[in-house]
């Protein structure tokens, strides 16, 4: 009941504030009157009675406040007043407010955005049941992860006891016709247990059956929710309908849930059973089932630890059983690499993400330092104000409360701006992110990260805001009153100088890291790809359909049709006006063609059969080397003479020639590429090395064969077209030229080589952009900090400067005096920052390319930049100081 009364009374008073106020005033006045009357009754004259009554009561205003402050409603009212006052304070000091809000917004926003992006990749559990049980299983090639063969999968799946399910998957890009233009879908060809390993099942329809994953099994597909909506407009009656892919009818048996995310292949939107031919595992080691081109995942049984799973797989790899023969290329003698799915999808990008996370923590720290700095500065400017308010009867608690309100208001405004920065930042981040960045779908602004950085920043700001209030004592109030407002710089100058030094140091660390990354990028872009990338249009052209099948009744007919289609298409392209040269290749340098697809074993005639070279196999048209301007070092290029019937000819790359032949002449020597049961290829020419996977990766062993002379006809080739003018502009004409040969063939990945080179370095560029952005923010904040401290210093020393000027110091002297002071802070900051930067540079070594962590140009450049920016920041207050008129200053004191 009492609580209810408290509540209703409080609300009543809040609602009728004036009446309530008047009541208190009346009551206090009445008390005073009665006291006076009482004293007069005891014989005192009226005036004396009034005086002593008042003395007894104390200040009526204070009593009134005391009475009023008893209820809870008063706290609400005071907070409201505090808030209003705080808002006025912030409005009246726009410089402080804007810098404060910006600093908070950048610090909170940037860290929230980065954490929101990194969190799903590194920390958040994957969106599957018991995600920790899902393991990726790789073969080992030269110590690194390598794809596995179907035969290996079968053996592991049969022998391993630690797993509930194992599955393999590989890209499947079926052509779909029937729309306005033929298109290619992004899909995955998987073994039947694929979704069981992930622990999910279709939202509509059913999962694949084991019987469907058999050689020549039924053609069935499961669609992603998105593709289902696109192709069937989300119609639930889709199940059992067919969709025509690659010249075949596929029955839709299931649709995944809308929130299903295939973290293994984020782009996948359609899945079909792989349907490998099990008989070939034992019968033919040269067959497709022994090609190392599959990804493999497994789900551990409940209660089985990851270590047990890993150990069992290692044990199986080390002890072949006779009933599971292994091809030479899949001997598993180097063991398997097994990693949790979460770590696996992040493993290439993890160093970059951790570096970015480290950088954003530095930015957040700089923001804290800057906020503390700002608040301290404000506090020392306001000592006079606090003194006055204290003298007027405000208690220490009351002043502290006011300060907390002000800082909370600032923090809220900064936080609100921070949300905007976080949302915009994350959007930009996702837009800028390299294609290989996993879990992009899951990147949403993380409220925990936001409130965490907001809370920390607010606490730091409020704590700093209270520092001046804590020191308020009676004496302080008096001395505060005696000082006039102008010379009242507080005793926190020293703290603030230390803070600025810290800011400069942090900024240096970020800038050096950004500088090193920038140098790496420069070095990288200066790398010679081995061909001329300018004015080069590229596109991938597919050939699908049963017309290209090699039937047992007519061997080789399909393949030669396929070859003829590509040759006719190439002829058509060559006739397009504006095309200078055109060619095609099975493997396009610097493209996203998976390297594993182009890697084959090569063996020279004079080589031990157990050894060999891993080479990129390029099946190319005549004129390919000329079109790309790949250097011919000796011999001849492949040309129109190298037809199916002609002697088998091959070009080898310079590195391959050197590594095998040394100073010998390789021309005329013979080798096998791929299967060894075919005629030898003779080396007819040696060409320069080409960067295949990336400018940063040196993997130069390569063999070029004529498409007419390879052992199989690639179904997808990349056309390369050298143009006279703008390459991109020619794309539509070239496409229609190809379609004039066969309307139904999809043409995808239409992109100029310049653009492709940029994309191939997207991850590096992404990290660089982030570091540059953070470096610039840090530099700005540090400059603001230096400016603030030096300005405060000038204000504090106005009198001294006046005296100096009066005693004959020139403007130049005063300018130098102030600038020297600011630069001393910068120098300290740089000295400390250099130590931190050495550590940071070591930390990002893996992200550097061709650049030493101690790269002289980056380091001196950054130091020079920091020195000149801080010189500019010092210049403005110093200039103001030099304008001080001694007569005015001295008189004012």
């Amino acid at each position: 009941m009492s609580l209810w009364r408290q509540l209703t009374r409080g609300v009543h008073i809040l609602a009728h504030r004036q009446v309530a106020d008047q009541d208190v005033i009346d009551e206090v006045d009445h008390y005073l009157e009665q006291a006076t009357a009482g004293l007069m009754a005891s014989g005192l004259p009226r005036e004396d009675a009034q005086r002593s009554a008042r003395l007894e009561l104390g200040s009526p205003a204070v009593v009134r406040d005391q009475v009023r402050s008893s209820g809870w409603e008063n706290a609400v009212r005071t907070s409201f007043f505090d808030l209003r006052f705080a808002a006025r304070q912030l409005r009246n000091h726009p410089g402080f407010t804007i810098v404060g809000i910006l600093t908070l917004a950048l610090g909170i926003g940037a860290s929230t955005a980065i954490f929101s992006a990194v969190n799903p990749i590194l920390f958040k559990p994957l969106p599957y049941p018991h995600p920790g049980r899902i393991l990726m299983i790789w073969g080992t090639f030269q110590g690194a992860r390598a794809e596995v063969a179907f035969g290996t999968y079968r053996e592991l799946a049969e022998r391993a006891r630690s797993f509930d399910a194992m599955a393999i998957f590989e890209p499947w890009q079926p052509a779909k016709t029937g729309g306005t233009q033929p298109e290619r879908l992004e899909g995955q060809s998987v073994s039947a247990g694929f979704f069981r390993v992930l622990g999910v099942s279709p939202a509509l329809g059913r999962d694949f059956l084991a019987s469907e994953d058999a050689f020549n099994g039924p053609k069935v597909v499961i669609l992603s929710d998105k593709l289902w909506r696109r192709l069937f407009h989300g119609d639930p009656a889709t199940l059992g309908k067919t969709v025509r892919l690659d010249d075949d009818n596929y029955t839709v048996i299931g649709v995944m849930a809308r929130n299903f995310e295939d973290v293994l292949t984020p782009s996948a939107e359609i899945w079909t059973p792989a349907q490998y031919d099990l008989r070939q595992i034992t019968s033919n080691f040269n067959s497709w089932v022994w090609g190392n081109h599959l990804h493999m995942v497994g789900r551990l049984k409940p209660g089985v630890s990851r270590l047990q799973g890993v150990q069992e797989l290692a044990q199986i790899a080390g002890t072949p059983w006779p009933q599971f023969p292994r091809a030479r290329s899949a001997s598993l003698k180097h063991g398997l690499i097994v990693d949790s799915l979460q770590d696996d999808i992040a493993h290439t990008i993890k160093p970059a993400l951790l570096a970015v996370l480290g950088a954003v923590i530095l930015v957040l720290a700089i923001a804290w330092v800057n906020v503390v700095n700002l608040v301290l500065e404000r506090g020392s400017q306001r000592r006079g104000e606090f003194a006055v308010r204290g003298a007027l009867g405000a208690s220490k608690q009351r002043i502290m409360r006011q300060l907390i309100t002000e800082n909370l208001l600032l923090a809220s405004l900064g936080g609100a701006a921070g949300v905007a920065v976080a949302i915009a930042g994350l959007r930009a981040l996702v837009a800028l992110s390299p294609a290989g960045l996993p879990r992009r779908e899951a990147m949403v602004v993380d409220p925990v990260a936001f409130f965490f950085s907001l809370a920390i920043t607010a606490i730091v700001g409020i704590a700093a805001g209270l520092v001046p209030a804590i020191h308020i004592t009676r004496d302080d109030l008096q001395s505060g009153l005696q000082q006039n407002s102008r010379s009242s710089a507080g005793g926190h100058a020293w703290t603030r100088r230390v803070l600025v030094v810290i800011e400069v140091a942090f900024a240096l660390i970020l800038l050096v890291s950004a500088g090193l990354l920038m140098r790496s990028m420069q070095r990288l872009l200066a790398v010679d790809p081995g061909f001329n990338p300018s004015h080069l249009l590229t596109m991938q052209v597919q050939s699908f359909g049963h017309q290209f099948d090699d039937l047992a009744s007519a061997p080789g007919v399909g393949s030669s049709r396929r070859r003829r289609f590509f040759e006719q298409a190439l002829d058509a392209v060559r006739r397009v006006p504006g095309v200078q040269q055109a060619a095609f290749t099975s493997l396009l340098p610097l493209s996203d063609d998976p390297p594993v697809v182009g890697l084959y074993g090569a063996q020279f005639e004079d080589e031990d059969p157990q050894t060999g070279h891993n080479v990129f196999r390029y099946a190319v048209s005549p004129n390919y080397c000329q079109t790309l301007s790949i250097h011919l070092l000796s011999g001849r290029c492949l040309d129109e003479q190298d037809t199916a019937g002609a002697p088998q000819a091959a070009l080898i790359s310079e590195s391959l020639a050197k590594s095998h032949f040394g100073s010998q002449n390789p021309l005329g020597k013979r080798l096998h590429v791929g299967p060894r049961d075919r005629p030898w290829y003779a080396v007819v020419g040696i060409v320069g090395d080409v960067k295949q996977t990336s400018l940063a990766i040196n993997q130069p062993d390569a063999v070029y064969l004529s498409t007419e002379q390879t052992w199989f006809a690639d179904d997808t080739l990349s056309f390369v077209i050298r143009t006279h003018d703008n390459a991109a502009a020619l794309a539509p004409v070239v496409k229609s030229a190809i379609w004039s040969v066969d309307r139904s063939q999809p043409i995808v990945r239409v992109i100029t080589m310049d653009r492709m080179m940029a994309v191939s370095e997207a991850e590096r560029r992404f990290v660089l952009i982030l570091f540059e952005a953070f470096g610039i923010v840090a530099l700005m904040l540090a400059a603001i900090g230096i400016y603030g401290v030096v300005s405060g210093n000038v204000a504090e020393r106005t009198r001294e400067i006046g005296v100096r000027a009066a005693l004959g110091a020139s403007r130049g002297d005063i300018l130098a005096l102030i600038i020297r002071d600011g630069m001393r802070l910068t120098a300290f900051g740089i000295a400390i920052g250099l130590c931190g930067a050495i550590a940071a540079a070591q930390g990002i070594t893996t992200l550097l390319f061709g650049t030493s962590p101690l790269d002289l140009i980056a380091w001196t450049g950054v130091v020079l930049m920091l020195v000149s920016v801080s010189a500019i920041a010092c210049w403005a207050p110093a200039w103001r100081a030099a304008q001080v008129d001694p007569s005015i200053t001295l008189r004012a004191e």
Partner: protein
Amino acid sequence: MDEPNTDVIQGTLDMLILKTLSLEPMHGFGIARRVEQVSRGVFKVNPGSLLTALQRLERAGWLDSEWRQTENSRRAKFYALTRAGKKQLEVETADWARRASAIARLLKVEG
């Protein structure tokens, strides 16, 4: 008033107010004067504390208040004890008696 007077003992102000109002409804100054008179000037009530305490007791439901005309036709706020206030007074009186006698016994032992 030459006799030294002291502020009301900490924590007893509520009880004194309740006791004073148990006799008749009164306004703030009346309560202060009555406390001083009855204690023969030993206790002196701080006006701020008194008025604040009145508010608090009213909130607690132990007092009712009413604005009335005084004899010299001024508006004054009169406080009266409620039923709950009476009970509270009994509780506090008993409590105080217990404590006072305990202190008295302790002092006697000392003596």
